């Protein structure tokens, strides 16, 4: 037991930047912007000024919508567009933007090894999908230096959408006004959206499109859609999501920040946060209501955090568990949200993927129908019933600094963690 703890402490010290192990060191010599402490700060709002309110409305009232603005330029030119309502997403990796939002900014098409245009199908757990070509863009996030990375242009009309991305099973995202966002900025703990497997195996995520015929293909890491933050010259080892707390009952909008880099400047140290290592799929352990959600014991049970999920989603307590009956589903079309008679307190334990460290987290679940019948759009106390595991969605980020530590570029698949 004791030696495991010591080993773990050594591991944590090694992976934490600024503690003598990883890159970044302890001093804050940042590039570009001189000694300004705001080179690594990007405004983040939930249903606020960085969102396009018309998209929130047209998509049917998108609640808990975390938005940032990004600037996208044609590589090698000053033709740029600044786009708001980009979903800040810790559950995905890489930048995706609707073709409509790019306007007249043209990007450089990436080709597969056969020389044909490269495209990608991304599936989501709700059977929506993003289909479209992979293109190089020059991306600016706040005051960080612009970086050139492959992004996905969301375009359901590109070539021929494969069956893995389209009807009858999958509903591809087609336009911002339907989906409620102009794009998605994936800043989860992995650098490439597929990673090493897609370099050698043709799994059906990347496609080579000759004319209108698209065939599944392998793809190099360099050509994969990737987390732009990982390409920054500094401040590139993680992000910190900072949002104020919200009382039960909600609020109309919220203003906060996303910081780039962990331990690279004076404003982004880990300070009092504890790091929880993630496994090779980006998952950790949650214990709730006597049930342990642990990928090591059940491959479909890894717990995770995802700012693109707009509630706390977990299996409703069954009749044989301590919290049995406390979280009934709402009636009718809202049946996958919880509708307890009144706001109820709960707690769960989060643990690193290997079992430690552990810390208890308190949360509240209110009556979803009552809450959305208020004028508010941002809630800390909404949750819903999902089989399988515990998804710590956007409410987890309200009132706590959440750190997403990226995998190490030099040894992909290791070093990733969350901290809070």
């Amino acid at each position, binding site marked *: 037991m004791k030696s495991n703890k010591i080993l773990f402490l050594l591991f944590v010290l090694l992976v934490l930047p600024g503690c003598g192990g990883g890159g970044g060191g302890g001093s804050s010599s940042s590039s570009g912007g001189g000694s300004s402490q705001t080179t690594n700060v990007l405004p983040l709002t939930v249903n606020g000024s960085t969102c396009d309110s018309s998209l929130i409305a047209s998509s049917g009232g998108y609640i808990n919508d975390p938005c940032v603005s990004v600037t996208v330029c044609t590589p090698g030119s000053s033709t740029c567009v600044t786009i708001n309502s980009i979903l800040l997403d810790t559950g995905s990796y890489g930048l995706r933007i609707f073709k409509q939002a790019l306007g007249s900014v043209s990007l450089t098409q990436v080709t597969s090894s056969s020389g044909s245009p490269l495209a990608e199908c991304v*599936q989501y757990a709700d059977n929506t999908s993003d289909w479209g070509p992979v293109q190089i863009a020059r991306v600016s996030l706040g005051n960080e230096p612009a970086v050139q990375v492959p992004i996905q242009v969301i375009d359901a009309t590109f070539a021929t959408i494969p069956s893995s991305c389209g009807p009858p*099973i999958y509903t591809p995202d087609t336009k911002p006004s339907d989906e409620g966002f102009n794009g998605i900025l994936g800043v*989860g703990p992995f650098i490439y959206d597929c990673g090493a497997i*897609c370099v050698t195996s043709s799994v059906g*995520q990347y496609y080579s499109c000759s004319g209108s015929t698209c065939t599944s293909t392998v793809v190099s890491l360099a050509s994969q859609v990737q987390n732009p933050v990982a390409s920054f010259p500094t401040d590139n080892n993680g992000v910190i999501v900072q949002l104020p707390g919200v009382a039960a009952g909600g609020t109309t909008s919220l203003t906060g920040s996303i910081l780039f880099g962990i331990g690279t400047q004076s404003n982004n140290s880990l300070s009092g946060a504890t790091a929880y290592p993630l496994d090779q799929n980006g998952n950790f352990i949650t214990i709730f209501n006597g049930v342990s959600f642990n990928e090591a014991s059940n*491959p479909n049970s890894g717990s995770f955090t995802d700012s693109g*999920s*707009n509630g706390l989603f977990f299996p409703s307590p069954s009749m044989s568990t301590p919290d049995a009956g406390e979280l009934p589903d709402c009636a009718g079309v809202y049946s996958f949200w919880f509708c307890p008679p009144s706001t109820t307190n709960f707690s769960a334990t989060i643990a690193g993927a290997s079992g430690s460290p552990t810390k208890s987290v308190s949360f509240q679940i209110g009556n979803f129908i009552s809450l959305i019948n208020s004028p508010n759009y941002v809630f800390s106390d909404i949750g819903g019933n999902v*089989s*399988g595991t515990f998804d710590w969605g956007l409410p987890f980020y309200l009132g706590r600094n959440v750190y997403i530590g990226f995998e190490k570029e030099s040894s992909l698949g290791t070093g990733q963690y969350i901290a809070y």
Partner: protein
Amino acid sequence: MKTRIYSIFFALGLLMVCFISVQRVAATLGEPAGSIESDRKALSTVKRGVKVRNSYTVYEIYSEANSVREYVSSLGIVFGIAWNGLVYPDITQLLGSYAGEYQKALQQTLRQKGSRHLRVQSPGVIVEQWGHMRSLQGRAYAPALIPSGVSVDEIK
């Protein structure tokens, strides 16, 4: 009697399967395991292991794209399927005769922005999905075919 003979035959079949690398996905919800050549394009899928638990057997078909686990009752019928990986398996093929019912129920399922999971319920089949990029997960089962004493949560 017939069941016992079938079971012995089935068990022998299992032993053979253990030592053979089969280049096909075993089966389809509601169908007998291994009796249907349901996926010819599965050149990269390999039948990896057989586990026996309680009144059912679990077959795992592993590929770089995903892992699919099929839950087969002692009568040899697939009553549940679970999966996880980079991309989803071909759900239409896995659901077999239940695919049409699923597609209809799917069309009627309300999708809500930001709810990154899915539950599609129809009388004959229930399909549930959750997870995130690189870790997409799900399961499907025919409630009427689940052996007695087996909990739905064992389909994982």
